[in-house]
């Protein structure tokens, strides 16, 4: 009984299902919630890939913060509570063809590339510790830059979303 396979399928199904539901549901809020499921599924997949820290970061950031952020955005932009389907058959059809084409190409690439057989040994002993070491030693500069980026984003978002002061 290859539990890895089972869990892989389960989590993959949750991820893909969430994405599909997101595309096909009518109400905007439902769409956001569906996507949250996708994030969860992905987190599971990260665990399977021995990236536990990433998995928890994913849950916290994505299905926690970003989903809530999107919901706030939905609330504030006074949607019509649902996305009325727009009759743009040509556009939709072409988009479908484009996405399908891209997937086809990627799939072709995946299938024909001779991937190296992965080792069955565990990657590292302590994921968080190793990650921290790597982050503060080799990748310290990108780390700092990412911090500045977050600061900039925060300031920018605040400035942008500030209401005009009525004088």
């Amino acid at each position, binding site marked *: 009984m290859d539990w890895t396979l089972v869990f892989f399928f389960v989590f993959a199904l949750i991820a893909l299902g969430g994405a599909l539901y997101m595309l096909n549901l009518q109400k905007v809020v439902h769409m956001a919630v569906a996507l949250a499921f996708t994030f969860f599924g992905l987190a599971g997949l990260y665990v399977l890939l021995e990236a536990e820290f990433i998995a928890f970061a994913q849950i916290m950031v994505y299905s926690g913060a970003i989903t809530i952020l999107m919901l706030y955005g939905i609330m504030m932009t006074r949607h019509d509570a649902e996305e009325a389907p727009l009759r743009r058959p040509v*556009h939709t059809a072409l*988009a479908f*063809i*484009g*996405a399908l*084409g*891209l997937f086809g*190409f990627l799939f*072709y*690439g995946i299938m024909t590339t001779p991937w190296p057989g992965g080792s069955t040994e565990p990657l590292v002993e302590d994921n968080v510790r190793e990650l921290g070491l790597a982050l503060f030693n080799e990748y310290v500069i990108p780390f700092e830059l990412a911090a500045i980026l977050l600061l900039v984003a925060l300031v920018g978002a605040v400035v942008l979303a500030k209401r005009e002061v009525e004088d």
Partner: protein
Amino acid sequence: MSAWTWLIPIFPLLAFLLLIGLGRSLRPAAGYVASLAVAVSLVLSLFVLAEVSAAGGAMVHTFPWLTAGDTTFTMGIEVNRLNAMMLAIVSFVSLLVHIYSIGYMHGDDRYGTYFAYLALFTFSMLGLVISPNLLQTYIFWELVGLSSFLLIGFWYFKPQARDAAKKAFLMTRIGDVALFAGMILLFWQVGSFQFSDIFAAVRAEEIDPGMVTLTAILIFIGAVGKSGQFPLHTWLPDAMEGPTPVSALIHAATMVAAGVYLVARTYPLFEASPTALTVVAAVGGFTAIFAASIGLVQTDIKRVLAYSTVSQLGYMMLALGVAGYTAAVFHLGTHAFFKALLFLAAGAVIHAVHTQDIREMGGLWRKMPLTAWVFLIGALALSGIPPFAGYFSKEEIILAAWEGGHPVLFALAVVAAFFTAFYMFRLFFLVFVANPRDAAAAKRIDAVRPVGREMTLPMLALAALSVVAGFVNTPWYHGLAGWLSADGLTSHYEAPGFVGWITALTVLTALVGIGLAASMYARGTLSPAALARRLEFGYDMLLNKYWIDELYGATVVRGAFGLGRLLHGIDRYIVEGLVALVGVLFRFVGRIGTALQTGKAQASNLVGVLGLVLLLIILTLGGVWE
């Protein structure tokens, strides 16, 4: 003087150019200017005639004109006996018609333009007869056709005149195309347009006999068109819409004779092909009797004369076909004189009575005695009564037919002679002798005033010639025959001599014709109306010209219109459709472009994605990922 032959057509040309430009301001003098130019041409022609008579062969001057590849086309002049005779006849009759027109067209709005056109015609005709090669002949042939068109449609505000001009041009065009085809075939075979080269090749039997026959017949078709032979004859009677002097000059004496002249000019070609000669004779003979029969019942004085012209031209073609070269040329000359005379006299009548319908005339002898006399002379000449000119020339033709062993043609010629005498004197009696039919006509007759001198003098001159011109070639004295063949260009002429019973037959036929006409129209012993009723179908058929015009209208004209409509449809729907299609195509492409330029992000994104996918697919298929 022969080197100055080229001047002969130049004077009328100068007159034309002058009058086209200044015709309006020179109004009263226009007629005199044109007449003076033609008079100078006449004088020069007479000099040339004298010189050619003295000299032996022909005189040719050519200069190179156009070089295309290896061949050089030349232009120039050639003067031989036939040409010189034609030059003299054409310029003389033209001069008389010019003088006559001064009186006839007096007071017309476009007086100057009229004389310009007359001068153009004279130039073209004179140029035609002295052409040394087929190409030049064709050029002048077309010019003559153009002048005819301009003059027939001179009173262009009359729809019948416009239609008649168009009809004339289109019908002669059919002949012209055949002539052109024959010309090109000859050029292809011989390598030159020059008459001398062509005749040399024919005599040396360098050309395939079938080709000789073909080209001869094609050239003859050109003559059929121009000379109004069956089946291209219907334009001539309609051409009577033009002024009467025009009818006299062009459609009696000269232009229509151009067809006969052409056949005579290219005679060696015809002599080499008995088939062609038979065709010529058959068409000529048939036309002679056909046209004469129509002329029996026509009521318009000019139309009777027109059909008579067609018939007489048929006689000339008949003569050429039975190897009576001299007879044909002789008849051409005499016919020019008396037919022009008849037309001018008719013109005088029309000018006085203001109608062309002979049923509205009668008894004009008292009022216009001079005109009546000259008309009588012309009629007698045309009917072939000795000692007038027509007798001798007609006699030659009938003799040639008999001597050549063509009994059918001989019979046709004699019957046609009978018809000719009959309808001419029917005309004469109805117009001049018989009493007016009703009161209106009588009143019209009473109002007639005498005709001006410009009009009577030419008529007198032509009358004189109609009397004496016959004596140049009688059964006892073959002056013309000898003179024509002296330059060695035409074949040796066998003089038939005097055949007594034929002469008696022809004269008798003519007299019977006159007598019949007299009894029907002058004395009233035989009623024409009763005869018409008894032979009603025949009468109808003749009156309606055998319904040939209607036949042409239903077939050729309708066919041409149908083709025109078809092509118009193709032009509108297919050609323009293609053009519109291009526009639609561009608009379609534009609309696609518009769809991309909406400013909506998703549209641009879509384009990007599609482009990426396309690129990847192309790269994959191109095998880049090896």
